[in-house]
């Protein structure tokens, strides 16, 4: 695709692109990866602490503790997004803050904040799931496919 794009360019455009590439700031991939690793790890460590909290003080087992933990993490990330703290964390940690489930809360609330000037129904209500909607759609679809495979396998007696 890149090669075909270059073919369609005029010589001036190619020259300009070379010039631009020469002056382009190199993306610090390794630094970004390390930051994402630590920020993502920190978020997961907090999640682990919350799940231990629920196991210790409430009647949740290791298998059922996932639900309240996820709900708590999403709730906190929504609050932090509202206060403007999560955006800073996102700028620093990149994928490390977007990939864990807290990124979902951030996606919902940031879209809601962005569109609040358009009104509550068509603005906030209509656009709240603009980003997170695809997560929900593909999450539900993937869960459906996995459940289907599992059902078929258990009918066949493999599982």
């Amino acid at each position, binding site marked *: 695709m890149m090669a075909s794009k270059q073919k369609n360019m005029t010589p001036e455009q190619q020259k300009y692109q070379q010039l631009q590439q020469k002056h382009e700031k190199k993306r610090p991939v390794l630094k970004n990866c390390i930051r994402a690793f630590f920020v993502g790890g920190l978020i997961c460590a907090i999640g682990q602490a919350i799940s*231990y909290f629920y*196991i*210790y003080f409430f*009647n*949740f*087992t*290791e*298998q*059922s*503790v996932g639900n309240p933990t996820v709900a708590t993490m999403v709730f906190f990330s929504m609050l932090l997004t509202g206060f403007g703290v999560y955006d800073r964390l996102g700028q620093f940690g990149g994928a490390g803050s977007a990939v864990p489930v807290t990124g979902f809360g951030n996606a919902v609330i940031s879209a809601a904040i962005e569109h609040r000037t358009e009104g509550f129904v068509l603005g906030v209500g209509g656009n709240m799931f603009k980003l997170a909607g695809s997560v929900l759609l593909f999450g539900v679809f993937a869960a459906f496919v996995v459940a289907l495979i599992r059902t078929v396998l258990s009918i066949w007696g493999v599982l």
Partner: protein
Amino acid sequence: MHNTYRFIILMSVILLVSCNQDQKAKDSQLALVKTTNPPPVVTDGHKGNDQVEKIKQDVSSFPELYDVAVVKGKKAILVAYKVKHLHRFKMKKIEKNVTKMLEKKYPKEKFTVSSDYKIFLEVVRLDEKMRSSSKFNHRDAEKRFNEIVKMTEDIK
């Protein structure tokens, strides 16, 4: 902005210091994060204590496990254990092997096996309660034991 950071750091330090008071922590307080190795528990007095000790040794001999708790009730025996971190991918297989070994070695007993942290924690709590509280009699212990067994059945 600096004041906010200072406040957060100060609060964290206070929190950490307050957590580090020089008092002996109960086993159950740390049961989720460190090896507690609780003694085997028999809910109805001391009958069959040797057997429970033997079961604990047998289960502990599995190299994948690092902390084993055993409780003997009137009708069943509950075995709770923690699996070493890198072996947690094979939890189901380990559970199957442990159950198979126990059923083969002690065919007369009914076993409930669980690797859940919550079950382990509750067993440690039960043991502590039985040792520390004189009001907690064998009937209470049996009742609590049955509740824990029911909890393991709910997981499956």
